[in-house]
């Protein structure tokens, strides 16, 4: 077939008007800039934290980073005190969040009828929406006096790691449950049906088939939960005793300092000029430490999540 002059002209028509193409490019560039802004945020976080932390480290004698307590006003910055406190709160939180979160996830994905799901999911979503400052108050006024002090009558302090850890755990439940449920949901139905086909019970399918098949997503949910628990601030600031200083302690029934608690009490400390002084500067160092720890955990959990996606 010969190409008539009319046909080649119509191909030119398909290119579109220059004004339309210009608009298209402008819109694309605008959206691209917005996407790159997220990169700028990351760079700004790292630059701000690292810059200030290094500046602080050069001004102090590095020996003050090892001592027997966190006393910023006395120039004693034992970081281990904060790390121990953080690990105690996060550990206690995971003791609460692991059974509650995973139990909820398995029930919702393996047992609940669609109607039950419609009732139960909003419970978790509501819990996820409760601000952490509210749980901090709850830990201080209900969990500590009504639960901790009744169980351990010899201890009458107003603050404890135990109460804070329990409240942080409750805050972490919805996150663990929703990530784990996604992982369980992604397990192909054929696996379950094969198990049912050879006569497996429902509980056997849940424990021996679905749970192992979703294990990397479940591990990811726990790591994410741990990261959230480590970064949680308001509960520990209110319920773990934010006096701004603490002796290193392994006592879960007493109060103390965590990384986030130390940052928040330095930030609101009124007995010093904000923004200057060696005590205030330690905030950047602790912040950097917190960022590195949570970032590492998030990267590891992302790895696990990706493994699920690849598998199915």
């Amino acid at each position, binding site marked *: 077939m010969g190409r008539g002059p009319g046909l080649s002209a119509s191909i030119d028509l398909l290119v579109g008007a220059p004004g*339309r193409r210009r608009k298209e490019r402008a819109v694309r560039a605008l959206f691209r800039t917005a996407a790159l802004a*997220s990169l700028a945020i990351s760079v700004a976080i790292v630059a701000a934290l690292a810059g200030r932390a290094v500046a602080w480290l050069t001004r102090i004698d590095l020996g003050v980073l090892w001592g027997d307590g966190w006393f910023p006003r006395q120039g004693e910055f034992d970081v281990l005190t904060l790390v121990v406190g953080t690990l105690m709160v996060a550990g206690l939180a995971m003791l609460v969040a692991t059974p509650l979160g995973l139990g909820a996830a398995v029930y919702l994905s393996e047992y609940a009828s669609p109607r039950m799901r419609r009732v139960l999911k909003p419970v978790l979503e509501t819990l996820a*929406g409760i601000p*952490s400052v509210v749980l901090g108050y709850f830990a201080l006024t209900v969990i500590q006096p009504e639960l901790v002090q009744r169980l351990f009558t010899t201890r009458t302090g107003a603050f404890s790691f135990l109460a804070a850890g329990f409240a942080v755990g409750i805050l972490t439940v919805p996150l663990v449950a929703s990530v784990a449920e996604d992982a369980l949901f992604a397990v192909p139905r054929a696996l379950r049906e094969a198990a049912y086909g050879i006569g497996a019970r429902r509980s056997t399918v849940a424990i021996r088939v679905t749970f192992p098949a979703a294990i990397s997503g479940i591990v990811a949910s726990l790591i994410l939960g741990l990261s959230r628990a480590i970064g949680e601030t308001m509960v520990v600031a209110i319920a773990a005793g934010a006096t701004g200083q603490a002796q290193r302690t392994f006592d879960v029934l007493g109060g103390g300092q965590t990384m986030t608690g130390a940052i928040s009490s330095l930030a609101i400390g009124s007995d010093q000029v904000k923004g200057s002084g060696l005590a205030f500067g330690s905030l950047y160092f602790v912040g950097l430490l917190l960022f590195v720890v949570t970032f590492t955990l998030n990267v590891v959990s992302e790895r696990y999540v990706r493994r699920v996606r690849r598998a199915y």
Partner: protein
Amino acid sequence: MADAAALGPARGTIDLVLRGRTRDVRGRLFQGALLMTLLVSLGVLLVLLWTTWNAAQPVFAERGLGFVSSDTSSLSSRAGVHQGLVGSLILVAFVAAVALPLGIAAAIYLQEYARDTRANRLLVTNIRNLAGVPSIVYGILGLVVFVQALRGLTGPDSYGRSFISGGLTLAVLVMPIVILISMESLRAVPAGIREAAYGVGATRWEVIRSHVLPYAAPGMFTGMILALARAFGETAPLLLVGAVTGYLNTPGGRNPLEVLQGQYTSLPTLIFSWAREPGEDWKAMTAAAIVVLLVAILAVNAIAIVLRNRYERKW
């Protein structure tokens, strides 16, 4: 599960017969234990709401709405949440104005324009990591950038501790969440919808504007509401960017820019500072402020859940 629903009540009977009419006791116990975990969470939630309401009741009984319309004060009998409530609403409006357009634009680029290259995948991974950064770290970022470096713009007379600093900090905090939610809603729109528009000669932007966005809108809207509710309840970063925890003086007769560059506080910040006060009277005040906060947040969450259930589509 769908397979259970398909069989319906017959499943239990068939199961029973196949197993020689012995009940699966261990299975039942396991199921009960799983349901228990959910009920424990629900129980804690109910106890929290109940105890807070009980503790708050005397304040509302005595002062009524006067509690909501009074300003901060060092006397518990005169203090109120008015400044905190107004402050939080201004902050959320600021966040909505900054983070929503930027976040949605970024999501459109990443989901609709960006090719699946290594660099673009890294960009998405980075956003996912940003969503997991503790909120107090964003507070430090806000302190260094908005409060200190940009003091001249954010609040020359308030040492940079202004609505603008607080609002921008929360906007940066919420943006990754907005991007991830928007991307998910865009991803859920089937390719056929786009192809129909391309087929009649629409450009990429025309396809997005007229076909993709309208279908993704309900999901995005729900997500945005939840993101803004999160910003409303956020406390930790505001402590670093200078939300006032004590007495706050808000002089009248200022123009909007002066207000935005001036000192501020928020409802959660008031709750935090009242929770630290000794004395039973402040405990009741804290509980009352929490009731105001929770009423706002739970109402907004309920609206989001209802909207989602109504407009959610399965393709």
